[in-house]
């Protein structure tokens, strides 16, 4: 096969990463994200959309239905109509769900059945490229859910302040944190049954994290436990934004998620390395 090549063959560019990330990161997360988007665009639209409706149905049934009986709830000293009280919480849940579905179920499948990460790590990609790329995809799903939910709540008039618009970037932060942690946790799972543990943790967190009522109803000890959970920080952060009742504590929430993102990324990279580059 000595046909004349009309152009030069290119070698793959050598990754130019120095310092502690060398060997772990090739600066090409883009290609991982692009692959994910291509697959979503062609195959998975419907699967992606189903996760969006869950919080919407909660909002319609509890917010509008139950809300008519409850009236309003006190939040940082102001009375907030019940539907407007739970809407931001459901938005945080929505971001969490999107990120967690993607970083658990999808990642589990890609890791154990599709061998996708093995394929990616046979190229010049490093584990951090793969981890970051997959997490960004999960985050993208979280963003889709949160923005869709925002449209619904705006139409229903449940956003009480202009700061509500900041709830979208806030939802992204929440999604990022859950996705980076979710992927690390998924790397330990060996069977589909293990995935059930995730929902076993998420379900109570969803119901108890000041989603439907203020946590002041609990004894102090229980409140501390709930405040240690990530969803409570997400709920409180988004609620401050959509109601416009912004408190200094929003800084603590952001810090909490910042730490979670960094730890999750580090954790996932280490796991991918020990699973596929051992």
């Amino acid at each position: 096969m000595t046909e004349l090549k009309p152009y030069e063959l290119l070698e793959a560019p050598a990754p130019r990463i120095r310092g502690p990330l060398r060997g772990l990161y090739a600066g090409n997360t883009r290609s991982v994200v692009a692959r994910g988007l291509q697959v979503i665009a062609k195959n998975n639209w419907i699967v992606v959309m189903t996760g969006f409706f869950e919080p919407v149905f909660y909002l319609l049934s509890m917010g509008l239905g139950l809300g008519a009986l409850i009236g309003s709830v006190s939040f940082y000293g102001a009375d907030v109509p019940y539907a407007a009280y739970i809407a931001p919480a459901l938005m945080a849940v929505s971001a969490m769900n999107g990120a967690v579905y993607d970083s658990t179920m999808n990642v589990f499948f890609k890791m154990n059945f599709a061998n996708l990460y093995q394929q990616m790590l046979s190229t010049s990609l490093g584990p951090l490229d793969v981890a970051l790329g997959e997490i960004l995809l999960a985050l993208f799903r979280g963003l889709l859910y949160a923005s869709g939910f925002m449209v619904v709540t705006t139409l229903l008039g449940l956003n009480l302040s202009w700061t509500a618009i900041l709830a979208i970037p806030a939802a992204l932060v929440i999604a990022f944190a859950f996705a980076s942690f979710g992927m690390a946790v998924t790397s330990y799972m060996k069977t589909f049954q293990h995935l059930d543990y995730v929902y076993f943790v998420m379900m109570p967190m969803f119901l108890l994290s000041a989603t439907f009522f203020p946590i002041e109803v609990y004894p102090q000890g229980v409140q501390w436990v709930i405040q240690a959970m990530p969803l409570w920080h997400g709920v409180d952060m988004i609620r401050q934004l959509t109601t416009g009742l912004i408190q200094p504590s929003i800084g603590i929430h952001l810090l909490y998620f910042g730490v979670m993102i960094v730890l999750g990324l580090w954790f996932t990279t280490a796991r991918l390395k020990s699973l596929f580059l051992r």
Partner: protein
Amino acid sequence: MGLRKQYGDFTAVDGIDFAIEPGEAFGFLGPNGAGKSTTMRMIAATSTRSDGRLSVLGFDPESHGPEIRAQLGIVPQADQLDEELRVIDNLIVYGRYFGLPLPYVKRRAEELLEFAQLVEKRKARVDGLSGGMKRRLTIARGLINSPKAMLLDEPTTGLDPQARHVLWDRLFRLKEEGTTLVLTTHYMDEAEQLCDRLVVVDKGRIVAEGSPSALIRQYSTREVLEVRFGSSRNEEAARAIEGIGDRIEVLPDRVLVYDDDGEAAMSAVHERGLQPITSLVRRSSLEDVFLRLTGRSLVE
């Protein structure tokens, strides 16, 4: 140098030394579980070593994994194709993982599709391809970054004879174009067809090294006489023909007589009044080398 790999108590690769020259086709020949794949994974910087030194394309795989893999084409034992993407997209997306520009990758993918004889499957789903096609696609994908060396782990295992020949033809072309080929196999004929030089691996150690013909010369005779007396009588017949040829090897189903002149050995067997059920004179192969070196046959 002194390369070792340990998984807990199990030592998969137990101190091996080898050097692969640019442009050569180098083989690791050995039975399943000999440590071939583990060695390949260490070369590909997808597995860390427990001990010893390893330099791949001038880099240490421990610290320069991405740099090394940028210049390698890796064809793993089980085809790992992206089943969520079509055939052509498998090539394009993989090229993007190497950070190659999209227009270039698109163009190169079309050429590689031709090389892999998969043009008519361009838009097909990967799970519908035959075993041979999948393997060719995997090889084409491994070529997208114009690698300096291709690492092929058991490239034709599980393929039918025709598919194997198509694949060998493709690999031979690559070799002619100057690509370094590193392959593992437990098939003698494959090693003989493709490898300039090979090492015989058994239980994580190298037991012999050389070109296929040199190994045969060194460890076997030119020809081999295979005689079958029926499984219950092989042992007994082997004692009766002792002394014929250089060496006699008794396998469960047949007796091998090593002699530079197989026909002469055959006459000698007949002279002793033995009538084998079937007999066959063939040239020595790497199978015989392996048998000689380890006392076991390769495919058990």
